[in-house]
């Protein structure tokens, strides 16, 4: 099971956090501090696993972003590594060659996508197409709702104008 997912930029800024195990606010910030210290200092060409407080952290660096997932010590590390890659591929497909800025300005989208891939720390959907499809469906719902509100407002304005 995955305990939490973190996205940290190379400067140590946190871009996304998702907690599947219960951590209090204090613990959360402690974890963030400790882990960014551990992971950001590791050199290239080392393995992608770090043992940390009896758990394992699987991380991978994509451009300037570190994707980290924390798992139980007996979990399958390579599997998690590929979940990370799967997530990145889905992001890529959704945003069309994703970059850090996409995630900063559309962080809520990143959360939706993550929710479509992982629930309660387990992989939910391994098909990229299905994930993208359902996120797109959500988007269109939002758009529809917006248009509706928009049109209601314009109606009101129109009424008022008369």
């Amino acid at each position: 099971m995955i305990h939490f997912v973190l996205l940290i930029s190379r400067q140590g800024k946190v871009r996304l956090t998702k907690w599947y195990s219960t951590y209090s606010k204090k613990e959360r910030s402690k974890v963030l501090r400790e882990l960014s210290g551990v992971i950001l200092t590791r050199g290239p060409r080392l393995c992608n696993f770090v043992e940390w407080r009896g758990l394992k952290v699987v991380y991978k660096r994509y451009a300037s972003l570190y994707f980290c997932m924390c798992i139980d010590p007996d979990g399958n590390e390579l599997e998690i590594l590929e979940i990370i890659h799967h997530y990145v591929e889905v992001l890529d497909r959704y945003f069309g060659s994703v970059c850090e800025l996409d995630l900063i300005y559309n962080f809520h989208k990143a959360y939706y996508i993550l929710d479509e891939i992982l629930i309660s720390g387990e992989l939910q959907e391994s098909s990229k197409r299905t994930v993208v499809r359902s996120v797109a469906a959500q988007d269109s719902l939002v758009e529809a709702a917006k248009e509706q509100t928009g049109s209601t407002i314009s109606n009101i304005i129109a009424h008022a104008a008369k």
Partner: protein
Amino acid sequence: MLYIYMLGYDVDFGHMEAVSLISAPKYPEKQVGYIVTSCLLNENHDFLRLAINTVRNDIIGRNETFQCLALTMVGNIGGREFAESLAPDVQKLLLSSSCRPLVRKKAALCLLRLFRKNPDVVNVDGWADRMAQLLDERDLGVLTSSMSLLVALVSNNHEAYWSCLPKCVKTLERLARNQDIPQEYTYYGIPSPWLQVKTMRALQYFPTIEDPYTRRTLFEVLQRILMGTDVVKNVNKNNASHAVLFEALALVMHLDAEKEMMSQCVALLGKFIAVREPNIRYLGLENMTRMLMVTDVQEIIKRHQAQIITSLKDPDISIRRRALDLLYGMCDVTNAKDIVEELLQYLSSADFTMREELSLKAAILAEKFAPDLSWYVDVILQLIDKAGDFISDDIWFRVVQFVTNNDDLQPYAAAKVKEYLEKPAVHETMVKVSAYILGEYSHLLARRPGCSPKEIFAILHEKLPTVSTTTIPILLSAYAKILMHTQPPDQELQSQIWAIFNKYESCIDAEIQQRAVEYFALCQKGAALMDILAEMPKFPERKSSLIKRAEYSEADTAEQSAIKLRAQQQPSNALVVTDQPPANGATSPVPVGPLSLVMVPSMITTEDHTSTDQALSQQNGSLTKVDPQHPSADLLGDLLGPLAIEGPPGATVQSEHNAVSGLEGGPDAVDGSAIVPVEEQRNTVQPIGNIAERFHALCLKDSGVLYEDPYIQIGIKAEWRAHHGRLVLFLGNKNTAPLVSVQALMLPPAHLKMELSLVPDTIPPRAQVQCPLEVVNLRPSRDVAVLDFSYKFGTNMVNVKLRLPAVLNKFLQPIPVPGEEFFPQWRSLSGPPLKLQEVVRGVRPMPLPEMANLLNSFRLMICPGLDPNPNNLVASTTFYSESTHAMLCLIRIETDPADRTQLRMTLASGDPTLTFELKEFIKEQLITIPTAPPQSPAPAPPPAAQATPQIPPNDPAALLAGLLS
């Protein structure tokens, strides 16, 4: 707002808004509400309670997207309260055929979360069958989610989900053969690697696979995975296929496959630890460590030793850690020398974060597998030399113990430490060891050149200015001893040493001051010095404090488990090394003395508390004789003792002193109680631990140690299914010599059919043999099976009778019975002999929840809420035996809140004997105290254990009477 939060600001003010957004009717608002809530709050947050109702409405509502949102949120942050109120709805969603896969897979994972928070949510009749149906699912997304759910369920209780096993194998086969897998579910050409991994994980929770067809299919699939995976260029494809491969390896290990397949696995791993890709190397090492637990592959693994040692020098600390772990795990008598030397060499170049762990491990291995003791001393001294900062006091205490206990070793050790001391820079720990050893044994070297007392003194004294206050007392003791050994007395040396004592008489540190004063006074006594400062007597044998420490050390869990594994296999190896008859007390005037010196550093910490009043007492002017009752007096009790006898008030002081030594004997005895003192070992082999307690503990759990003595450890592991039981006895020889004439005889009671497989006549040194034992329960009875076990070690013939924990409650299977079923059943079983009632008196008083726990631990499931009276307990269970098959038993216990020692118990089942036996069984458990009361801490073995060997072997009745203590 989420953005503000991510930047690290406090957003408490917005939580309420977020939660209220959830109940908004419009999708975008709801979506934002859900996402913010699930990111910001955790399951214990109060606001979440407010949302439960809205969430529930969304889940049971018709709108699919709302359902998804709600399920996702609950899946991510749902807590116990959610579990209680939402589980049935989520289950319905998961099973309903009208839902789209999108919703169902979310429901599966949501249920998983709820299950983790409260395992009762799936305790519904027939859930296992429904689970099996779920596994027939064609949609791989849903299947992946269901498999995750299954993994969690099975890890909790595999027995209920046997029916899912063949389905798992089938799924795996389908994936491995790439049959009928939609294109979108293949990942770099591999059919859903995640699902493969999960399926194999689920399979690992089932103890064995009995159906030969399923087993064969599974092995074919595994073989295919093992053989068909090669290293390819594409990183992701490589990772994915290796993820599957490693999981397959784990499964093979779990299944105890044939030797051929095992060695194939080891060969693969051997290849992995040599590749360039760091991830694979890391995993190769890790899995090899796991593989060590499989019995007969160690030899094959040893072939890779050189490669593993190379990994110790890897640039990546994760890999280095794994390599160290593996080396530690694979070390045994044959390769200990190489490995430890390698570790020592590495120590000087290792980075600081690893040194402490490294030195601790090297010390343990050196101690455990030392081929000879001088080697051990060498290793530890080197260790101290190279990594003194990381050597805990335990390690050097241990060396001192060994040296003291082995006469041959003493001159060698003394010469060796002297060599080290002559180096220009010496670590303080080294000074401590050297001072101690030279003080004790330097006279043995006196004839060698450069080792006259004077020279030794000079060497030691050179270090005095450089050391801290904890070391000075040890040095002072060494001086006193050197002085004592100088015969005839050397005036010059004497005056030098006296000058030092004089100087420290006014030292600010109470410990140093006291020693200086006392030694000075002693020296002036002349001849009496001889007796007082005689050589330290042998240390009582004890479990290595290092191993103890290793057990508790806060290493990360993987390591910890490795250490524990070792400790369990060979708990008291170290004891064997010094198996010499002790010359206890012969040279020492007071037999409790030996601890005092070695314990100095730890005593000093306590000294801090007493130093003030000690200073007071010394101001009072009793400088030469410290009041024997003073807390610190027992430190030097052995030194003060004879002195007091010489003193004028003779008898009174002596008795006073005896009181002190008695006091001191107290902690000593406690120390020794874990193991049996050596003297007693000579008479008869005494068990370690309380046999009765171990038995009672095993009645409640399925694996543990049944019996242990200095030579052998008998562990037990049991699996129970309906009326069948399969026990495995692990007979472990703890010694370096084989155990011969090993015999194990079953004395089964009439109601159990037992078959013990062949027990080998000899157990090789440090080996463990497994003897499976099949048990079939024919009918209900409380009688206990007895194992008559005997072996011969040297000239000792040991025979023990052990009760086997194949007791009534093992054939019970807890089952919850809802009210609507319970009452008709209860009424239909009316009156004796099917329903029996008894008022039990003399019950061990305990609060109701504790009693409920006790019953639950006996696999009687408490059904709360059936009885309106809160003082009553209602429980239900199923009993399995060949004659009764599965039989429902219902229990009701009425307690009296005013008088906890009595209660009324009513039992009902469809079988008169069962009712009676079960009633008696529960009664026994409630009246007697199953976890035997704490015995006196003295090293004398508990009465039950003592009685066992004396019972005539061929009288089962007397035997049982004796055993049921």
